[in-house]
């Protein structure tokens, strides 16, 4: 990607959390870029470090967590070097965040309008009356009927879908360059999910902002993302365009994720879906083998020889696996083995 369109650049991001007796490393050397007008989806199951990556980019991790990175740039400004004051200026103004649960992300004590105007008064130095006009504009833009009345209401008077629309409107208030959406539709029901995702996509195309979409739902990714970053155990295991990754996953973990989704028109009723045995292991200490080896149906001796590095695959893709990059030597049937036959992969998860 040409550097002039790059908004966010993350390189070698590490998060370390000291716990009694050990240091958790939930994010290890994560690197990716987000360009102007681009949607990058970070996918992975729970505990893969997706949300922590997002919080680290926003500088919102708790104090105990240590963030190290080779580079963390927003428009060529280093975020690591930013002072607390600079962070406050950036957040809400240049980077905005949409949270998972709209039911708890709005302060119940203030009217919608007050919460929106507060951002404008603080960042854009607008007058109160201008701020109200802008808030009404944006509420209308995100498809909220009767925005002038909604402005005077309290969060508890809005449904979940409406609240998430308000969150999106709040994120857009100061025309940020980057929006981080941390599972923006997980707490909503399916019809509302589709509406919210379409809204996000339309707004993103219209305003040409960068969107970093954190999700565990590949169905969400399929309709939204330009590029996909697959995370497992705190590491990036595969990067590619949306079509490439979904059509022909390279890393066994991605393959497992893709195989676990029913395909409309192809998956028959009663047919078994694929699954990945085991759970994400605790992220303690250095890796001495491939992080996925305990759960990988293709695991072999060489996988345990040492940590695997991210390498170039064909067509500008990246993957962290020793299997051939052309995708040979794979058998999709491995994901459909009944339980009990995959004894090797379920035995010792949790210990790297």
């Amino acid at each position, binding site marked *: 990607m040409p550097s002039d369109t790059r908004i966010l650049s993350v390189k070698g991001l590490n998060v370390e959390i000291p716990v009694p007796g050990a240091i958790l490393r939930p994010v290890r050397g994560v690197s990716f870029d987000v360009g102007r007008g681009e949607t990058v989806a970070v996918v992975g199951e729970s505990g893969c470090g997706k949300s922590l990556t997002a919080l680290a980019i926003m500088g919102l991790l708790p104090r105990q967590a240590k963030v190290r990175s080779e580079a963390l740039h927003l428009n060529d400004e280093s975020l690591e070097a930013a002072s607390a004051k600079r962070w*406050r200026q950036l*957040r809400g103004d240049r980077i905005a*965040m949409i*949270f*998972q*649960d709209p039911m708890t*992300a709005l*302060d119940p004590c203030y009217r919608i309008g007050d919460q929106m105007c507060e951002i404008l008064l603080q960042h854009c130095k607008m007058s109160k009356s201008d701020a109200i006009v802008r808030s009404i504009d944006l509420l209308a833009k995100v498809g909220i009927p*009767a925005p002038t*009345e909604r402005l005077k209401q309290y969060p508890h008077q809005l449904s979940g879908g409406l609240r998430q629309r308000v969150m999106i409107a709040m994120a857009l208030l100061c025309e940020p360059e980057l929006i981080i959406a941390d599972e923006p539709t997980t707490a909503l029901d399916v019809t509302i999910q589709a509406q919210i995702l379409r809204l996000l996509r339309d707004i993103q195309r219209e305003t040409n902002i960068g969107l970093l979409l954190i999700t565990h739902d590949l169905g969400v990714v399929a309709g939204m993302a330009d590029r996909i970053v697959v995370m497992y155990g705190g590491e990036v295991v595969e990067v590619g365009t949306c079509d490439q990754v979904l059509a022909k996953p390279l890393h066994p973990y991605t393959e497992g994720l893709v195989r676990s989704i029913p395909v409309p028109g192809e998956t028959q009723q009663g047919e078994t879906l694929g699954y990945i045995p085991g759970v994400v292991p605790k992220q303690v200490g250095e890796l001495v083998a491939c992080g996925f080896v305990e759960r990988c149906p293709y695991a072999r001796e060489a996988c345990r020889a040492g940590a695997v590095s991210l390498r170039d695959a064909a067509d500008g893709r990246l993957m962290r696996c020793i299997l051939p990059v052309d995708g040979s030597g794979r058998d999709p049937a491995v994901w459909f083995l009944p339980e009990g036959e995959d004894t090797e992969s379920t035995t010792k998860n949790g210990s790297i």
Partner: protein
Amino acid sequence: MIDMTTPAHDMTAVSMSPGRVALRRALRHGGFWIGGTIILVIVLLAIFAPLITPYDPSIQGLAQRFVPPVWADGGSWQHPLGTDNLGRDHMARMLFGARISLGIGLLTVVISGSIGTAMGICAGYWGGWPDMIINFFITVRLTLPVVLVALVVVALIGSSLWLLILVIGLLLWDRFAIVVRSATQQIAQREYITSARAIGSSTSRILFREILPNITGPLIVVASIEIAHAILLEAALSFLGLGVQPPNVSWGLMVAEAKAQLLFRPWMIAIPGTALVLLVFAINLVGDALRDVTTPEGKA
């Protein structure tokens, strides 16, 4: 005939602030009515004391000693609640005493509430070592016997009204700190606090504009209980002779002055005593009602 022009929902009509919602619920609460009425009457009597009684509470009249109240033999409407051993009008003393009792209750709670809330919010929001230090102070405070410490301080420095308020205020912040701390811990976990940080709010803004409004419920309840607590403590100290000093008058002091007459003129001690019980009872009723009103699952 159905009017098709009016919308199905009048959305502005239901947009009440949380404060107004709480007030509306409070007005449907029996305890709030009873307690609130008693408090309101006492407060009004205290405020308009000079208009209600023609007497000065400290003017003595030796010819008029021990006049019984109007309902007893020998009583008259000239002194509706009688006079005390120095011939001072009991009703005037009750009315002006209410000013001091209520004033002490309110002012001490302002002091102790500020201290306790500040400590509790800091401890609850930051956790870690600020929490440990503040918890240490709370524990130290809890080990101090309030009455004894207050007695020692007043005995050493000498008693004045302001010193009394300060001492009680500095001793009663523990419950505020404990309640506010745990309430803050709960609120700080909420996503809207992270959200506030994500839009670039400063820490002080989060503490005072986001957390404080969200803990007003428990704060009001503790404050009401602590007002009653402070009034009782003042009465106790005055009874022991180390609280309010003459020529000031408080209900506790009146109880103390009347105790010598307990067997002969029991109304002297019964009147301020009953008033104290009534006031504390009313405050507790209101506090209880506020708890019901401010907790969403409370019976409204």
